[in-house]
Every structure is written in C-alpha cells, then in structure tokens.
C-alpha cells in the first residue's frame, strides 16, 4: 500500500492537470468562447480577442477574473463584449484598481465603495476624470524615474482609463446609439445617402436626414480611426499580412468612398446587434459564419487563435506554480517523516509541474515563432524551467528529495516573478529591431539564462544545506557531502554557461555595434556572474573555503544573479532618484538582505548547528 501511495498521488494530480487543460465551456447560451477566438491585430501581432480581454484586465486590475455588475463571474471575453458593444453596462463593471489613498480622495471615493475595497467602475470614476487628466499631465512632466508613488499611480490610472476608452471606440463610435443599425443597413442605404450628399454639395434640393446620416458616419469613422485600440478588420485579400489589417474606423472611411462595406466590419456590426438585443442563437450564428469565412480564406489563422485562447484559459503556469508549492512542502516534510512516500511524491509532482511548464513554454514559442526567451517575462519562465530541469537530474541521481525541494522552491519563485511581470500587458511582444535575430536569441540569450538558472540553483542548494544543518538534525554526513558535491558541480556548470553566454553576447555586440565589449550595465552584470563563479571555484581549489564557506559563497551568488537579472534594469531608475519606490526594487533589496542574513547565520559556530551537535553527542 505504502508503495502505491506516490502513484495514487501522482494520478490525482495528473487528472487535475488534465482537467485544467480541457476546452473551456460557456456559462450561458451565448458562445462567448467562439467570440473570444476571433482574431484581431493589436501591437503588431494577430491574436484572439480573448488575449486582448485578458491582458487588458491584467493591466487594469492585476487579475483576469472579472465579475459582472449583477454579480455573476464572467469570462474575460464577455467583459470585452460589453466594453465593445454595451458601454452602458461596461461602465458598471468594477475593473479599475485604485489603492493609493490620495487618488481615492481625489476622486471622492472610499475603499468601501469598491469591489474588494480596491476595484471601481468607470461610472464611479467619471466625475473625477478631468482632475485625473490634469494630475496626470502634471506628472507627465516628471521623468518616470523620479515620480512620487502618487504620480506613478495617477499616470497608471490614466493609462488604464485611456485603454478602456480606446477599447470602447474600437467597433462602435461613442455617442451614436444606432450606429450598429446604420452599419448593418449600410449597403442598402448608402446609394440614397451618397446622392443626398452629392445634391447638397451641388446646391440642389436634398434630403437633409440622409445627408446628415452620411456626415455622421464620416465623423464616427474619423473618431474610431483616431482612438480605436483594435485593428480587427482584415483586408479582403491577403489576410495573413498583418501590415494590411485596419481599424474599424479606417475601414469604414474607405467604405464611404467605395460604397462597399468590408465583410468583417459588417460581421462585427451584426455580432454587436445580436449581443445588444440578447439573441443568443443569432449571436452564435453570426460568430460562426464570420469564423467560417475567415477559415476558408486563411486556413491557419483561426486554428492559431483557437490554440492561443485555449492556452489562455488553461493558465498552465498558474497550475504549475501551485504544484511546485505542494512538491516543495512534500520534499521538506520528507526529511523529517515518511522519506520514501513523500520523497517520491515530491519528485513526481515536480516532474508533472515541469512538464506542464514545458508545454506552456512550447506553445508560447510556437505562437511567437521565436526561441523561448524574448523578454523579461519569458526569461523568468525559462530560468525556472532550466533550474528545475537540473533539479530533476540531481534528484534522479541522489534520490534524497533535495533536488525536489530546490526544484519546488525555484519553480515557485520564478513563476511568481513571471506572474508579476505579466501585469504590464501582452507578454508575447514584438522584438525591437536589434533584437530581431532568432539566431542570437537562441544561442546567447538561452545560454546566459541557463547560467542564471544554475547560479541560482547552487545558491538554493546552499540555502537547504544551511537550513537543514542549522535548524534540524537531518543533515547527516552523507547528505552534507552530497550537497557539497552538488553545489560544486552546479557551480562548474554555471561557470561554463554564464561564460559561454557572455561571450556569445560579446560576439553579437561585435556583429551589431562594432565592439566586442562596451562595459554596458547588462554586460557588466553578466561578467560579474562569471567572475563570481570563477572566484568560488578558485577559492575552493586553493583550499580557502571548505564545505561551509562554499555554501556561503554560493548563497551570495543569489544576490549577484538577481542584481544582473533585475538590478541593472533598474539602474537608470534606482540611483539618481531619491523618491524612488518601485515595488520590484524593494523586493530585490529584501531578497538581498534575506540572503545576507542566511550567510550570517551560516557563520554561527558549528556547535550551534543542530545537525552537527547531534553528531558530536
């Protein structure tokens, strides 16, 4: 029975994971899921509307979960439908996160008025918008690095409001109630309207209502073209070329000349009408028809969007994060009780979480057509992925739950970091010109990132050594020696990868800027990691440090790596600004201080270490 327990455990977790991957369903009669899969162009990439909904929600309120004004929990795509087509209802969703007390005061709000005491609706903000804009304009003049927390929060909130309003101008011009009907009858009504306009211009008698209708459409088109966030209208031919996708406004403007409405625009108008009039069957048909039409013309497009939407709803990294936590706890408890059952369970859990993360990274790579690391967010995913891979190797070799514990801890930490980095918007970004090189992304960036992973892993293994040695009796000589070997081996591995990665970076720099080495902050950061690892190895070879010293140096490696990974990015910020309060900066400081603390604890005399006391008794 005891032998079977880990497998039982494993199968439960696998079932839960599989359940999280299954296709999302609709709560009501409307096929919201199908709507969320329709493509649009935003920020240079064709993506499903579902992605737009989720990243907008993340930016505005720090989470994807959203509750409708009548208290139902709704899918992000349903929120987007309301934002696009039913502003009067969208205005009542509480999706603007405001925590700064001065901003609340400025807007005459109290925390109690908000959902979860911090989320407010557009209606609640409406009266304060003029003041918000004035404050944001004042803050605009201040360099972003030296803004006070109030100013940063004001600018962020204004950005969110603008994003919301731009989303709202994407398909329906604000202020004209029957706009969608006009669009739906566009082709039937246009000849008469054009004739009226022509007559008006020629100074002949004309139908004033018809002429005004076409003038209104022209105004709406101009507004939507100027403010619309989405570029959802594909060209009639050659839809795969993103450069030719248009905003609804631009497309309508063209139609006013040609007299022909782009089929996509008319489809979006009919979908909107069906949504507004709450006709689920009609809504579903319209979505289905538009989708089928896209499918016929560009075979891969909708399939790609389907997979991305599915990936969004599965949230594999979130699931993976939770499994890592459980795995870490199992591994730690296994050193005290039931080593076999819990140790094996921990290993399997880490393996499942890692496979899930691998799948997630794989899907992202496929969607983007790029190597895994393209920005800070994906570097966090990959640092965790590579470190956990090393942990799995270690665990298969040593089978003492140390690899699993380190894997669970690093996997969890990196995914949490990734989650916070994802709040800035869509994480599948386009690469700026100089970075647009899959070859260098695949070689330099990957090796350097593996170097980070390995240096962290050495540091985390050292943390385990100190923690177990100081506070428990579980660090027996055999385990201790095994840990020393692991740390030493991983430091060698880290030296190799961080060195090769740094060198490849130098070669890339030589290829693109004409100098191998320029002492630029990021280069220096990488160099410091290499130097630190070299220092550890030389100190070890020279007999300057023994087991404990090796561990202390490896822990300091955590600080060195964090500095290179995040610290240098904050450099422009952190130093010549005195009121700087960026949250990330304080977390970095806190982490560094905690590591220094552990290093000092490790300096306690050996007879204070519980593991070594018990041995001498």
């Amino acid at each position, binding site marked *: 029975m005891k032998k079977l327990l880990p497998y039982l455990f494993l199968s439960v977790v696998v079932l839960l994971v599989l359940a999280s991957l299954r296709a999302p369903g609709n709560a009501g009669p409307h096929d919201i899921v199908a709507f969320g899969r329709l493509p649009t162009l935003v920020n*240079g990439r064709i993506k499903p509307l579902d992605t737009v909904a989720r990243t907008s929600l993340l930016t505005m309120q720090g989470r994807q979960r959203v509750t409708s004004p009548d208290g139902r929990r709704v899918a992000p795509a349903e929120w987007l439908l309301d934002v696009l087509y039913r502003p009067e209802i969208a205005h009542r969703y509480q999706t603007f996160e405001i925590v700064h007390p001065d901003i609340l005061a400025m807007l005459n709000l109290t925390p109690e008025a908000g959902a979860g005491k911090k989320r407010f609706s557009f209606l609640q903000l409406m009266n304060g918008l003029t003041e918000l804009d004035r404050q944001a304009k004042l803050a605009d003049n201040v360099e972003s690095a030296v803004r006070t927390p109030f100013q940063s929060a004001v600018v962020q909130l204004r950005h969110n409001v603008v994003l919301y309003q731009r989303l709202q101008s994407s398909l329906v011009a604000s202020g004209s109630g029957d706009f969608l009907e006009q669009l739906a009858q566009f082709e039937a009504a246009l000849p008469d309207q054009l004739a009226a306009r022509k007559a008006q211009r020629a100074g002949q008698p004309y139908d004033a209502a018809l002429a005004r209708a076409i003038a209104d459409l022209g105004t709406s088109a101009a507004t939507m073209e100027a403010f619309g966030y989405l570029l959802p209208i594909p060209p009639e031919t050659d839809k795969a070329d993103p450069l030719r996708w248009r905003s609804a406004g631009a497309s309508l403007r063209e139609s006013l000349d040609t007299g022909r409405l782009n089929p996509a625009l008319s489809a979006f108008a009919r979908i909107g009408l069906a949504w507004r009039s709450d006709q689920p069957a009609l809504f579903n048909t319209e979505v289905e028809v538009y989708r089928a039409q896209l499918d016929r013309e560009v075979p891969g497009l909708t399939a790609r969007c389907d997979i991305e939407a599915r990936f969004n709803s599965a949230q594999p990294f979130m699931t993976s994060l939770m499994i890592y936590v459980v795995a870490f706890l199992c591994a730690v408890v296994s050193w005290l009780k039931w080593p076999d059952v819990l140790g094996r369970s921990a290993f399997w859990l880490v393996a499942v979480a890692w496979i899930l993360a691998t799948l997630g990274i794989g899907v992202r790579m496929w969607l983007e057509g790029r190597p895994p690391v393209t920005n800070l967010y994906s570097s966090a995913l990959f640092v965790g992925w590579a470190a956990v891979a090393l942990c799995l190797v270690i665990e298969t070799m040593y089978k003492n739950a140390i690899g699993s514990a380190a894997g669970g801890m690093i996997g969890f930490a990196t995914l949490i970091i990734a989650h916070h980095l994802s709040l800035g918007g869509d994480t599948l970004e386009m690469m*700026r010109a100089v970075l647009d090189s899959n070859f260098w992304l695949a070689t330099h960036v990957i090796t350097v990132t593996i170097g980070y992973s390995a240096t962290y892993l050495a540091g985390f293994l050292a943390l385990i050594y100190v923690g177990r040695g100081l506070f428990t009796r579980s660090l027996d000589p055999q385990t201790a020696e095994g840990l020393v070997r692991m740390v030493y*081996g991983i430091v060698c591995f880290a030296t*190799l990868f961080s060195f090769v990665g740094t*060198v490849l970076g130098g070669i890339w720099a030589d290829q693109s*800027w004409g100098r191998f*080495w320029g002492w630029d902050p990021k280069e220096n950061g990488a160099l410091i990691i290499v130097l630190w690892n070299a220092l550890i190895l030389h100190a070890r070879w*020279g007999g*300057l440090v023994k087991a404990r010293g090796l561990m202390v140096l490896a822990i300091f490696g955590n600080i060195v790596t964090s500095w290179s990974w995040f610290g240098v990015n904050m*450099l422009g910020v952190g130093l010549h600004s005195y009121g700087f309060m960026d949250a990330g900066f304080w977390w970095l400081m806190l982490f560094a201080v905690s590591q220094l603390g552990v290093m000092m604890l490790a300096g306690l005399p050996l007879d204070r270490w519980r593991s070594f006391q018990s041995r001498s008794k």
Partner: protein
Amino acid sequence: MASFWRELRDVLVSLKLTVALIALSIVLVLAATLDQVNIGIWAVQEKYFHTFAVFWNVGELSLAIFPGGYTLGGLLLINLVAAHVSRFRFTWRKAGMHFVHGGLILLLLGELFTGLWQDEYQMRLDEGETKNYSESFRGVELAITDVTSPDFDDVVAIPEPVLAGRETVQHPKLPFRVAVKDFQPNSSLRMRPAAGATGEGGVTMGAGTQLEATALPLTYKQDERNVPTAFVELLGADGSIGTWMVSVLLIQPQRFEFGGRSWKIALRFARHYKPFSLTLLKFSHDRYAGTEIPKNFSSRIRLNTPDGRDDREVLIYMNNPLRYAGLTFYQSGFDNNDTTSILQVVRNPSWLLPYIACSLMTFGLLLQFGLHLGGFIRKRRQASSPIAA
C-alpha cells in the same frame, strides 16, 4: 634576500592572489556600472578601466583609492603566467584548465589592444548623398578652405589640441596666421539681443557678430553632444583681418575674401578620409503593423572606389554590417524623417582576438568539466553497482 624573492614568488603564484584579484575586479566592475548613471559610459571606461588607478577628487586633491583596470588586468596576467610557469605539468586532468587560462591571457591582451587601437567614427548620409569620409564623434577641427578655383578646394584642417591650447599657427598654404583666442569644448549659442558692431569676444566678421556663446560644462550623457565653439583671429602681414566665431552648430561655412582669393572658415567634426566612397541610395525604417515599434532599419548603399575596382550595391541592416578595407560600417541611427542614415564606422585591428580567445576558453571549460562529470558518473556507477547486484 633569497627568501624575499621566494616569498614574492609564492605570493605571485598563489590562488589566494587570484581570488583577491577576482574579488577586486568584481568591486571595480560594480562600481563602474553604478557610476555610469552619473558620468556616462565613456567617462567610466577612462576612469575605471583604461587606467592604473581609480582617482577620487577631494577638493583640489586627487587620491588614488582603488586599482584600475590596467593594474588588476596586469596583475591577473602576471599571476596566471607565473602560476603556469612555476607549476606547469601537463596532465589530462588539467588539460582543460590550460586552454581556459591560455584563452584568458589572449582575452585580456585583446581588451588591452582594443583599448589602444580601436577608433570609432560616424558617417551621416542623406538619401542620394555621396561621402568619402567619416566624422569623429567628439574631436573637432578648424577647416580653412581656399575655394577660389571652381575645380577643387584646398583645405587646411587645424586639429583640436591646437585649438584647445589657444595657439597661434602659421601654415605654409595660408597667407595669414591663425590665432585661436578662445576655445569652449561645450557651449550654447543664441542670438544677441541687440546686434552691435563687434560681437562677444571681439568677433568682427561673419555670423558670429549676431550671436553670443555661453560656455557649458562637458556633458557625458548618451543623448547629448558637446557643442565646441572657438573664437579665431586671422592675422595678415598688415595686421588683423578679423575675428570669427566658429562652432559646430554653424553648419554653413563663413566666407571671406583675402589676398585676392576666396576662403571659407568652419569648425567641424574631424574628418577621416577613405580611399572609397559610399552613396546612400535608400534608407528604410520598417515598423510592426499598427505600432511604432521598429522592426528593422536598413541602408542600401553604393560602394565605389576611384580606381573602379569596386562598384557595387550593399545592404547594411541590423546585425548585418559591411566590412570593407579594415573598417566595419554599422547601421546606428537615422534622422530627418527617415531620409538620413547614420552609420557607425569602426576600425579595430584586433577584432579577431576575442573570438579566438573565447573559442579556446569554451573548449577548455567543456573539456575540464566534461572530464570531471565523466569521472563523477563513473564513480557513482561503481559505488551503486554492488548494492544493485
């Protein structure tokens, strides 16, 4: 005495020295990174790396407070070479280490040579424009041109050190002496409120009579350039011809007549002429659909040598420079609403050294750790097999 030498040798070959030097290097690199915020990347290289000691100014005093890049790099080299000379014994176990350290020696030397020999210029080309010279980023020169002949110009360029030294020079090609009365390495220009007969600094001729210059401290910021301005008096046999204000901001040369000939005078970024010319045919700036995010910058260039040996089109774009005649041309910027391309021109004779050094080191590391890992796995197999059996 013998014991002193032995002790010195022991110190020089010791791993303790290695560890200490690495630790000091880390501190140096970190300090240099942090200081970039204050003084910019160029000044940092001079202050921390291309120097024997880092100085700290206390009032008037300049104190050496930390070993500089040359000192640490040099000591590391000595330590490395000494250790290998005194302990060198070839074993397979250490073969990788020899490659790593050999490569490291090359790498340190390469960085030294690069610091000594590398030159950087830039070349601005408008679409359709042809140039056979590049310009310095920082250094300026005073150009006095005899433009009397319609067929050719005769240029005398006076380099920046002469200007900075406020010297008076007589050049055989010039029928007058050039007296530099003032030189401001950085300045700002503005219109004089009321134009008088003579300008500031006794300027009597040219556009400078209507301008005034204010000296500014040197800037090291990435996005700012220093604007040098000079006040120059030309002295003929019969006395002063006039005093001009020249500045890199005054792009149009100022003309004057003397001795029956026509002249132009201008301060410009120092030029380096090439035995070939480049013509910008087309500059392209591609963006991602619906965004302002740049996707690519590229310059289509015609490369031409006067002897007609080379006359071809090349495309320079991100990560794809043109290497020609010992120079490398990189796409570095653009201007004038995407009709001007800015190329960076680099001459670095030792550019190949880091490639060789790094290949050696990578190979060495792979060999060393590969052997380690192999040995480790073999040991574990032996250790675990009796239990399995």
